[in-house]
């Protein structure tokens, strides 16, 4: 992304306007992604705040990047992970040691959006039965529309590993969905 290189350079040279538009462009993405990693909204906005202020403070020492969005997502992910490690108690209250939260909102959001479609309910249900990591990769790929390269950056794994994980996850998703459809079909037939 030629554009990102340019924006990043301007930001590094201390351009406040570019910094501001960078925050505006990415804040919502970071917030929505962060919401899935930590439930405490104050802690989350603090993390994002600290992420940007640290970037600004250290801008002269930062390397170049042509991938601002994955870079920010990755930094936020690390921050939240650290924050959670520090406040061990919050982990124990927030259910589970895996980073990605089992988000009931995905389901309710799908249900509430547009028409309460049966298919959407099913999708939400099946998604729910996946592991946190599997949900996270679906989120990054299809909600955030990141490329495999970008997902690799965010999760800190290799590109082939991303492709592999995606493939396994979607295959599992299909199988579970088919099983669900099958059950529903049997149920309808039995009435």
């Amino acid at each position, binding site marked *: 992304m030629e554009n990102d290189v340019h924006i990043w350079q301007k930001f590094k040279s201390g351009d406040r306007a570019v910094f*501001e538009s960078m925050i505006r462009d990415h804040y919502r993405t970071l917030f929505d992604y962060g919401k899935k990693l930590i439930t405490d909204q*104050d802690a989350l906005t603090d993390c994002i705040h600290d992420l940007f202020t640290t970037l600004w403070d250290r801008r002269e020492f930062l390397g170049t990047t042509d991938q601002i969005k994955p870079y920010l997502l990755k930094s936020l992910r690390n921050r939240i992970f650290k924050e959670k490690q520090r406040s061990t*108690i919050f982990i*124990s*209250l927030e259910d589970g040691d895996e980073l990605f939260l089992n988000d009931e909102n995905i389901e309710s959001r*799908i249900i509430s959006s547009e028409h309460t479609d049966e298919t959407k309910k099913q999708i939400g249900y099946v998604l729910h039965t996946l592991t946190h990591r599997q949900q996270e990769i679906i989120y990054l790929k299809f909600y955030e529309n990141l490329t495999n390269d970008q997902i690799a950056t965010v999760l800190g794994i290799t590109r082939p590993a991303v492709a592999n994980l995606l493939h396994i996850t979607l295959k599992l*998703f299909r199988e579970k969905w088919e099983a669900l459809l099958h059950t529903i079909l049997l149920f309808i037939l039995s009435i």
Partner: protein
Amino acid sequence: MKYYDKYNLEDFLLDENFRLWVVQKDQAGDDFWARIEGQYPDKKIIMQQARELLLTWNQTHSELSEDNLEKQVSRILTSTEAPVIQPVAFNFMRTWVSVAASVLLILATGWGISWKMQHEEPASDYRQYVSRVPVPMKEIVNQTGKKMSVKLPDGSVVALSPASRISYAHTFINNKKREVYLSGEAFFDVEKDALNPFFVYAHGLVTRVVGTSFLIKTTEANVEVLVRSGRVSVLAMKDIDSQNNRNTELLLTPNQQAIFSTKDNLISKSISSMPLELIKPETQSGFVFQDQPVHKVFATLEKVYGIPIVYDSAVMEKCSLHVELSNEPFFTKLDIISQTIGASYRVSDGQVVVSSEGCD
């Protein structure tokens, strides 16, 4: 040519062209995919499913309101503003959030300041740092024999113990911070205001909160911070400016306590000697356990008191409890439980660590 006849749901999902066609409503793809659909009629349903999935996933309903977004953006912009030249000591105080300020400050004023910071006594003494604050301050001293309730301009309430004093600026919120200086002992019940965090400076220790309640007690030798509700972070004042030392910042949760030794500038984490119930037990039976596995008992205690309990679940797998507890203090409950199952415990780093040889 791709082998669409072999395509499964996941293959369509991962097909970049297919995804772009669905998500970006790329009309150029219409003909192509209609042709594929005609060519492989048995793939029609799968393609339909894949489209539905992609569309569902692509609808992002952000939980963040426009208002909140604006607030957060301006909060970041304010904290990263270049510092106005101010007296040294004041900058020393206000650079918690913006480390930039300190970096620029040191660059701007050169070695003079860093020399000063290393060789002067840190501004840990109450009088010393109150006198350095450049804005008009209000001081309240409790000369009575009982606790005094002080309402701060932001609505927060301070219960000031006898022979204790606090100071704060007349215009309470400065640089998006609410700052109070304490000598002695006080219980703080802080109004929630995420945009203007609340800071208490006491005898070399900085306590930072957003909205919560906690007690601070200063003596000659140490500062104790005990959390009643919410989250509180503490940091030695000498570490404020140094980014490397920011990891000495400790996060406290209810019923946890930090003890800061002013002599060696060390903070340790512990548990309140008399933890309070944060929530009521979820179950009707409360603390009545009838032949319950020990992990359930510990989970209930953790939840109610907010104190992490660490134990080896494999070793203690077979331990079960038949015990009725009610209003005993937390540590009495722990005594009863550990005696019943023949275990022992100690408090370490704000957690309870239970050791046991297991049960048969």
